[in-house]
């Protein structure tokens, strides 16, 4: 597979897993399982960093004058990345709310 396509998939796979974990963390907190929720947030954050590294590599290349060819797949990967980033904030806030309710 071509380099860009593979890199896009690595981003989608890593940040997509992170996003799922953040949502699973909310679901655990909803059931009062706060230790599990915290563990999922941490695990998700590690995943997110992996995807972020792959993305940062592209940005650095572009900063060095090496243009990245545009593709819908890369845009989709960035979309997943942003969504995961936002979900972490929402998940942490919701877990705090569930804790206060519990």
């Amino acid at each position, binding site marked *: 597979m071509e380099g860009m396509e593979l890199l896009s*998939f690595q981003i989608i796979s890593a940040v997509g897993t992170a996003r*799922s974990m953040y949502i699973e963390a909310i679901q655990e907190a909803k059931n009062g399982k706060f230790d599990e929720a915290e563990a999922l947030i941490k695990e998700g954050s590690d995943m997110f960093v992996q995807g972020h590294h792959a993305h940062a590599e592209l940005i650095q290349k572009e900063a060095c004058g090496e243009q990245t060819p545009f593709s819908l797949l890369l845009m989709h990967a960035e979309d997943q990345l942003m969504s995961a980033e936002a979900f972490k904030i929402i998940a942490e806030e919701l877990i705090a709310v569930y804790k206060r309710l519990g």
Partner: protein
Amino acid sequence: MKKIVLLCAAGMSTSLLVNKMKAAAAAEGFECDIEAYPVAEASRVGKEADVILLGPQVRYNLNNVKNQLPGKPVEAIDMVAYGMMDGKKVIAQVKKALGL
């Protein structure tokens, strides 16, 4: 002929995996029909499927989809296999889920 359904957010990223899986299945002589859909269509498209696989970005829906499709094998795609677009590894996961 086994029917495999892949689910992700929009049916976009998994549709690329479908091609890789088809190539891997053909190489092994494993006859199957593989399609990708958005996870929102799980209950409709899952009814006809022998196995349903979820992409890592919609993995949090696993229990939800299982509840919608009682008795069907519903699994999350291995994250590394997905990231590497490893069709062969995902076909192996399908065969295992089907007990082949």
